[in-house]
Structure formats: structure tokens, C-alpha cells
């Protein structure tokens, strides 16, 4: 259900390529606001199938089966790419998403037109997500 990725794969994920639009959302089952915005990403993928939408889960190892899988199954997020990070030090992987990110989640990285935009908070609604992408 969740593919574990390492630092190398995360770096590739967070590197902008000129012709691709990639949305990477960092979330955890214990972050309520982060779960509230997950449906927006599912809707985005449905409306714009050519955009790559990735959910990166940050739950603690032991909580994945108990807390993460139910969220993904209930919300039917299998249409999105579901990844998780294992055993990586925050100081090693967080700067790859954004240098100024000190750790607050949920957060979303938007890659478009060869540029990066990092939003260190949840999206209030679906329009806010779309607007953030269009602004790039």
C-alpha cells in the first residue's frame, strides 16, 4: 500500500523538471488538518490526470498498519502515489523539500515549469490548492 523511499528517491521526487507538474504532500495520520486536505489532492488528480500527485506519509513505523492504512483505504487514495520515508534523519531529508522547512506539517511541495513552491500549511479548500499551482 505504501512504498518506502530513500533519500535518493526523495531527492529525485523533489527536483523540478521543466515539462512536468508534480505535487508532493507531506502528511501524517496524527495531523488532523493534513488529513482534512487529502481529498483535495484526490480531486486534483481526477480533474488533471496528467499531473503527478504524490502523498508522502511521515507516520512512525509502528503506526502505519494501525493508523495510516485505514485512512488510505477509507478515503480511497489508491489513485495517488503513496510513499513513505523510513529511517531518515529530518536534517537530511527535509532540506530536499525546502531549505527553510523546520518541520511543521502538513506541507506541500509544488513543482511546475522548472520551479519549486513550498507551502508550509494546509490548504483551506480545493480552490486554494488549484490557485497555488496556477500561480507557478
Amino acid at each position: 500500500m505504501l512504498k518506502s523511499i530513500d533519500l535518493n528517491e526523495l531527492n529525485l521526487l523533489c527536483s523540478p523538471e521543466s515539462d512536468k507538474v508534480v505535487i508532493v504532500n507531506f502528511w501524517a495520520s496524527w495531523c488532523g488538518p493534513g488529513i482534512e486536505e487529502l481529498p483535495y489532492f484526490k480531486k486534483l488528480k481526477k480533474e488533471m490526470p496528467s499531473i503527478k500527485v504524490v502523498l508522502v506519509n511521515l507516520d512512525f513505523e509502528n503506526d502505519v498498519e494501525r493508523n495510516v492504512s485505514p485512512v488510505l483505504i477509507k478515503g480511497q487514495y489508491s489513485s495517488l502515489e503513496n510513499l513513505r520515508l523510513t529511517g531518515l534523519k529530518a536534517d537530511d531529508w527535509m532540506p530536499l523539500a525546502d531549505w527553510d522547512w523546520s518541520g511543521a506539517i502538513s506541507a506541500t511541495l509544488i513543482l511546475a515549469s522548472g520551479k519549486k513552491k513550498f507551502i508550509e500549511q494546509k490548504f483551506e479548500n480545493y480552490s486554494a490548492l488549484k490557485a497555488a499551482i496556477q500561480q507557478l
Partner: protein
Amino acid sequence: MKNLFYLIITIAFVNLFATIPPSAGYQVGDVVTDFSAKEVNGKTVSTKDFEGAKGFVIVFTCNTCPVAQKYEDRIIQLAEKLNDKDWPLIAINSNDKGISPGDSFDKMQSTSKSKKYSFPYLYDELQSIVNAFWATETPHFYVLDANKKVKYIGAMDDHADDVTGVKTRYVENAIDAIEKNQDPNPSFTRAVGCGINKRTTLATSVLLNKSGI
């Protein structure tokens, strides 16, 4: 092969600057202006109340964040250890109770009472303290020296999930370093935590801080 090359360059670059923290609020080396707020016992507590303190541990925490909850016992134990050393630990809840009702003053009082906090738990209702520090998640630790100069910012240790997995205790190491008149290393770490909901934007906060408000 090309991607591996870029990865190596990126990691090298990141590690070169790994100790430089994001540029908002108090940074390592800044001196913290005295602040005060209402404490759960109803009285106002100020950093000025701790004349002669050897240093301070300031922690932005809350009742509701599961990561903060995982650290609660560790914070309680650290505070008890520091009580004998003249190092006040001050916990601050800056969460907007409108967004997070579990962080109301009443709830803070019951948490402090039931877990027998031996340290001040301040209610940063106006968010003026969190805006000055620009702490971003819970829990977020700042270790200050006797002159209230920030010497360390970041996580308490390297394993939020459970205390038995901890290898490095960043905050305790920072305290030891300061007592020896040395700089903590690392002086800054990142850690996953629940974002603190701030009513002010970063730009406005910088403006307010610069004009001394």
C-alpha cells in the same frame, strides 16, 4: 549516474550549511527580549522572574499534538532535573484555541494539574511570543544561555517515536555545552511536528519585530 552526481552535490551542499537555520524569528546567536504571559495558575510569569538563571529551556508545545504528547513525559523529567540546576524550563502554548479547542486555557490547566507539571505552562493567547521566536511546530525547543542568547533551536532528541530509541539528546547536550561555555553542536536541528497555527503572516511578523512591537 547523472542523478547520483546531483544527489551527491546536493547532500554536500546541504551538509555544508546544515547548521544554518531558516531565517525568521530568533536565530542562534540572537538575544531574546524578555516576555511574559498568563500561566495556568492564573498569574503572569515573565522571563524577568528568573534572576540569576544559568540558562533557559523554552519549549513551544500544546495539549493536542501527538508528537508533543510523545515528548510530554520527557519534558516533565527534564524540567525536574533542571529544577536543581537553576535552569528554568518554560512551556508555551501558542495554538489558536479557535482552530484547536483542545488548547484552551481550561484544558491547559487540567493537563498541567493531571500530569503535575513542575514548570510554568504559559498561554500565548495573542501569539506575540511565538511570533517573536517564529517557532513553527510543536514541540519546538530553544535553549538560551544566562544572558538569554539563543544557543540551540530544534528537536529535543533524535527519536520522537519513543524514548528507548533515542541516541542523541540534543537539548541536554546543549545545556551541558553551555555550562562548559561551549557552543552546542549541533546548534540547530529539524524535526517533524504539528504546525503552530499562526494568525499573523511571516511578513507582518518581521515588520512587527523590527518596529519593536
